[in-house]
Structures are given as C-alpha cells and as structure tokens.
C-alpha cells in the first residue's frame, strides 16, 4: 500500500510529457511554411512525416514541390517519382516531374552550353506506369480464375458449342493473364535488377569500389534514374544508364520505393 502511494505521488510529481504534434498538424505546418515561401521549413516538416512512417503520395508531392522551390531538383525528382509510384496516373505529379526535369536541363545548359536530360521512363514503366500494382493484382486474379475455370469446365463440357466457347475464353484469358502478369511484374519491380533510385547530386562520382580513395569511373547527373544493386555500409552499388556501374555514396543516391 505504501509502495502504491509512493508510486502515485511520484507519478503526480513527474512533469507531464509534452504532447507531440499530430501528423495532421505537422502537415499543416509544412503547408503553412510553403505558403509563406519558407521552403526549407516546409521540407523539414514533410521529412518529419516521412520519418514518422508516412508513405503518402500527397506528402511526397508537397515535398517534391518544396525541394524544387529550393533548387534541389534531384530530390524533387525523387519525391515526384515516389508520388507517381504511390499513385499512378497522378497527372499533377507527372507534370511537375516534367517541369523539374526541364528546369534541370535548363540549369545544365546554362552551365555547360548543352544538356541531356533523362526525360522518359523505361519501356515497361511507360506501358504500365499508369496502372497501380494493386489494380494489376486484382486483374490478374480475376483472369487466373477465369482462364483456369474455363479450362476446368472444358474438361467436362459435352456440347461442341460450349466446348468451343470455353476454349476461346480459356485461351483469351490466358493471353490477357500473361500480359497482366507481365505488367504486375514490371510494376512490382520483380524484373528489376535492383531498386529503382534517383541520383541526388550533380556529377555524383561513380567509383570502382566503396571507398573515397577508389578511382572514379564516371559521374552521374543529378535527377538521373539509377538502379541500386548492392549495399555496403554508406555506399551503394548502382547502375546508371549511359554511365555504367559503380559505387556511389549513399547520400548521393536514394531509392524511389
């Protein structure tokens, strides 16, 4: 009894913990900072949400916009790509991504007189990019049941017309299932060699090994798509199209998913 009383007294004496802002408040704080052109403050708030485990296309979009306003186009590309992955068919995010890439090109052109900007997604992503993986999953499920169901019914059908119809359904269903399965594999990254990523720094060095003393193989442009194939401590082994494969500092490249 005395212990209980002591515990109660102690609990009452302890200062009440400060109530952390809710996720909604952090989001609104970020928006308010953006509206008053405090893009750095807005970025901090949005990143606070990411650190809290929020995986939301709207937060990613806003973070991309804030980074773009700060001139950090590589990060802006990363967040817009992430917004598109979370919500395929987001026209605003697609448009913003194009805008940022164009701005990257203008910057590069102003600095070097010419520029080449990675403007298009891979073929598979271009084909299936507007459909979410979940939609493809449901579609594949339905086609699987349809094709196999038609095939099973075909075993027991007796009338020729019914067998013909079921055969057509089974074949067409199987064909569509193949296409859908391919799309699902593309959208889920099963066919990727590694993790899709974006280079965050202009002329980020690609090295022979995971060490600053390793020789440089080349430089990757900011905003360039890349693929992370391996990880070692603070280094990432990446494949950058038109540059090659090598090791890049983890701070210079970030995965989209």
């Amino acid at each position: 009894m005395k212990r209980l009383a002591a515990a109660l007294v102690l609990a009452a004496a302890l200062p009440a913990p400060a109530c952390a802002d809710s996720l909604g408040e952090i989001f609104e704080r970020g928006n308010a900072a953006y509206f008053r052109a405090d893009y750095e403050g807005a970025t901090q708030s949005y990143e606070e949400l990411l650190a809290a485990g929020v995986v939301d296309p709207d937060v990613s979009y806003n973070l991309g916009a804030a980074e773009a306003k700060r001139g950090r186009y590589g990060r802006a590309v990363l967040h817009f790509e992430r917004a598109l992955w979370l919500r395929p068919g987001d026209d605003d995010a697609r448009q913003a991504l194009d805008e940022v890439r164009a701005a990257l090109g203008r910057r590069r052109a102003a600095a070097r007189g010419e520029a080449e900007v990675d403007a298009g997604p891979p073929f598979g992503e271009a084909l299936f990019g507007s459909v979410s993986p979940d939609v493809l999953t449901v579609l594949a499920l339905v086609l699987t049941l349809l094709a196999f169901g038609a095939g099973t019914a075909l075993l027991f059908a007796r009338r020729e017309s019914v067998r013909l119809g079921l055969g057509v359904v089974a074949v067409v269903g199987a064909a569509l299932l193949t296409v859908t399965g391919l799309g699902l594999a593309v959208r889920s990254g099963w066919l990727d060699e590694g993790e899709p990523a974006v280079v965050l720094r202009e002329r980020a060095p690609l090295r022979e090994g995971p060490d600053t003393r390793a020789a440089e193989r080349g430089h990757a442009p900011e905003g360039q798509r890349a693929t992370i194939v391996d990880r070692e401590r603070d280094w990432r082994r990446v494949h950058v199209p038109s540059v090659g494969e090598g090791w890049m500092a983890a701070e210079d490249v970030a995965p989209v998913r």
Partner: protein
Amino acid sequence: MNRGCVGLGVAVVALAVCGIAHAQQGVSATVTMQAQPTVAQVGDVIRLEVQAQVSGSTNVQVELPELSAFDVMSRQVSTPMQFRFGFGNQAQTIQSTTVHRLTLRARQPGTFALGPATALVDGRPFRSNSVTIQVGGAAAPDPDPSAQPPPSAADPTGFDPTAFVRTVVDTPSPYVGQQVTVTVYLYSRQPQINGLNVTQEPTTEGFWVHDLLPPQRTLEAQQQTVNGLSFQVFVLRRFAAFPLRSGPLTVGGTGVTMSSSGIFDIFAPPSAPLSRVGAPITVDVRELPDANRPPGVPHVGTLELSATLDPTQAATGDAVQLTVTARGTGMLRQLTLPDPAAPGLRVLTPEVSDQVTSPRDLVGGARTFRWLIVPEREGTYTLGPFAVPVLDPRTGTYGVARAEALRLTSAGNPVGSATPDPEPGPSLRADERALTLGPIRTRSALARSHAPLVEATWVRWAFALGPMTLLVGLAVLAARRRAQRGPARGPRQASRDARRRLSSARGHADAGRAREFYGAIAQALKEVLEAKLTRAVGSLTHAELRRSLVGRGLAEGLADRVVDELEGCDFARFSAAGVRSEEMQQCLDRARGLLDELERFVPREEVAS
C-alpha cells in the same frame, strides 16, 4: 296548505331544471382558433382568428386569450347567422357563427402559447384549441408610440372643435441620418365615421422614408381630451423619416376627407363630407458633431459588423467568397463598405442584400455585402479589417463597429491579369524563374504503410485456386474414366502382362509342359484383346470374337489370325502333336507377332447394336 305550496315549488324547480337540461341538450358549439403565421420576427404582423360555431342558441360570448405580449393593431367581429326551419313535427334549429379577427404585432421575442379561447353559450363554456407563436429577432428598445401629450390651446396645429389633423415627430432636432418617427393623427368628434380617405399624403422631401404601419389595417380610435373636448383619435400614418441633409426639413400636411352619420340622420338628409388638412411640421436637422469624429462616413444608430471568408485557402484562379454583414438600427440601406483590395487579387463587384425590420417602430435590420475574390498569384493576403464609424444619436458620441481582418492563402501558377513578379533578385536563377508548379496538396490521408496487395498471403492462395481447380478437375475426370472402364486393365498394362505371360510360356515350353504353354499363350492374347475391347472375351465364341474385332476396326486378316491362333491353342492343349518344341516355338513367335500388331491397334468406339 303549506305542504301543497312546498310541493308546488319543488315541482316548478324540477320542471325548470328539466327544461334547462333539455334546452342545454340541444346546444352545441365548436370553437377554433388559428394564427397566421405561427413563426415570426419581432415587428411582424400576425393574424389571429377565433371562430365559434354554435347550434341551438344565439347567446354567445367569446372570451379571447391573453394577448399582452402583442400589440393589437385591429379587431374585427362578424356574426353571420343561419336559420333552419323545421317542418311538421321537427323543431326549429338555429345556428350561428361568431368570428373574431385580430391583427397583432409581435412586440418581443419568445415562444407564446395563446389560448384557449372560450365561447360562453348560454353560460356553458366551450373552449378552443391553443396556438403557439414563436417570435424571433431582438427586442427593440421601447419607445411608446401611442403616448402623445395633448396639444395646448396655443398649439399651432390647426385645432378645430369638430375635427383636425395633427402631425407629430418624436425628435424635433435630429442629426443627419437619425431616425425621426412621424405620426399623423386625426382628431374627430364626429359620432360615427363611415368613410375616411387620405386625399393628400405628407411630403417628405429631404428624407428617406420607411413605413411603420402595415398596408392593410383597421383604424381603431382612442379617446383623448383636447381643450376640454373629447375627441376620437385615429392614427392615419406612421413612418420613419431619415433626414439626408442638415438644416430645416419639412414634413408636409396630410389631407383627409371623412363622411359621418348620427343616430338621427335617418330623419335628415346626409351631411356633406368633411375635409381637413394638417399643418406641416419642420424639424431642424443638425450636422454630425465634429468632436472625436473618426474618419469615414459615420452611421447613425447602432451597428455590429461580422465578416467570414470561405474558403481560406484556395488555388490561384479559384474564387473565394468574402461576406461582411452589418446589423443594427438606422439607415442601413445607405451603408457602404470599400471593396477589399490587394495586389494579386481580383475583386468582383459585391452583391448587396438588405433585410429591413422595424420592431417597436425602430428601423434596422441587416445589410450583407458579398464579394467574390479571385487570387491571381500565390501568396498570403489580408482582407480587412473592416470598420465603420458609428454615432449614437442619444448620446452624440462616436464609436467604431469593427470586424477583424481575415487571411487568404493561395498557391499555384499566376493566372489572369496577374502582374509578373517584380524583378528577380540576383539569387534567382533562370531555371527558377521559369519553374512553374501546380498548387501543393492541402489535404492528405497521411497513409502510414503501402504494402502491395500482391504480397498479401490470401492473394497468393487465391492465385493458387485456379490451377488447383484444374488439377481437381483432371483428377475427377481420370477417376470417372477409370470407373467407366471397370476392373479391366489398361491396354499398356495388359500388353506388359501378356509379354510376361509369353515369357513364362517359354519356360513351360522348355519344360515340355504343352498344356500350360498353350494356356499361357491363349491367356496372353485374350488379356490384350479384353484390354483393347474393354470387355470380357471369354464368353464369346471365336466367330463372335472375330465379328467383334472386325467391328471395332481390326483388319480382317489380323482378326482371322488371332482367332486361328486362339483356336490352335485350344486344340493343341489337348493334342499330343503340340508337344513338339518346334511347334511350341513357332506358336510363341506367332503370338509375339500378334501382340506387336495388337498393340498398334486402336479400336473404334463401340457402336450400340
């Protein structure tokens, strides 16, 4: 004698009671009360009707409910009667209806339960329903418009001992914009006024005027003594006049014509109509005081301002609505507010609406301004604050009615006629100047996880459902076919068994066991035939067997050789000539050849005979 008187008295009383009871049994009444409207604002007119339908009596007295919460503007009573005559033995029935119509004015807010009204019919009460009236709005201050001092003998209002018109103002020296309540009275000593017409309306030049009396009303007279004479006083006109400029302003005289009659007029020709014109009255309008006068055009009266903005965040190019409402008393219809303005905002012409009320003869209400505002550039804008100087005419002091500022934030690309940003500072790069992004999202579900559906366990099991269904179907089909085939083995199994039997037959041949040898040969051939034909062949004669084989598609030559071999085996089993090993060897070779040919045989479907 005394007993007889007492008995007679008792009989009379009893007869009277019976008569009364009998009479009352024939009396019925229905009393109803209704009000229109039952929901009103302070100052609104309400019409109340009490109707008593009585059958069997004309002695009706209607008692109205308590109406102290309302001003009784007029009262009208009508009593149409119906007679029904009975024929023969039927008694005469009398029906009467009494209707009381009152015009009320709501004096104060609240919920008022009226009734029930009571109709006393031959002393019996009949009650009506109750009526509840809800009155909203704010209670107005309480001037008593009916209290007027009697004019003195020197009053220059045209006193006439027969009848005269008098105009009265409640404020002889108002401020510009201050309400002056003007009332026009008719004083008459005519016995009964049959017709009353206002032939000349009072002029009100220099005033903004608002009528305070309902357009349809019944004139009610009040008694008043003037210069020792008793007059009936009628209110002809009452209106609020707001002077629009300073200096002397005149309310013109009102002209009226009335005709009247007395009780003895049936013996005399009708008298000529009587005309009277009231004297004009002048008010001395004062300028607003200068002491402590705030900037702007002051409103005279009372005022409260409220402002709302909907929504407070919008994308560039999307309109938002700013609403400012001014409530109070005075000449609100003259109130103006400046349009909100800010660089980057497009402000449309406001829509203004007025709601005028006059509770207790004090004009006021609400005036609402609605602006549509379109932000054309990204940014945060401050609208307001809104302030209007107010003069309290009773004290002559100023105040300020205020509504706090509102904040509008917008995001997005510049639209419309938005002026471009000012010259960019040296820190802005060319690419930044050209970068245009859509507005950021102001709403988000703030989702915490994004586990793809394809990774869910149940989805994987669902994908397996299709192939599993097919496998089950195949298994069912195989089982069904096996069941149809019966205990017979498959052709391949039978062929293998036959080969083994031939091998064992060779052993019999080597051992010289002819009977067993030929038995094995025949058995081997029969097993293969049974497997092919999917039927037992042991019960068939050789001719039937041949026909069956040919009928199932076996070549006739092969069928003949098979049958011949079976016949030969049957004969040789019991024949001593078959004991020679050469013969058994030849038989074995022939059987092997037949088996090879039979294995390649694919029988046709058996045709039902």
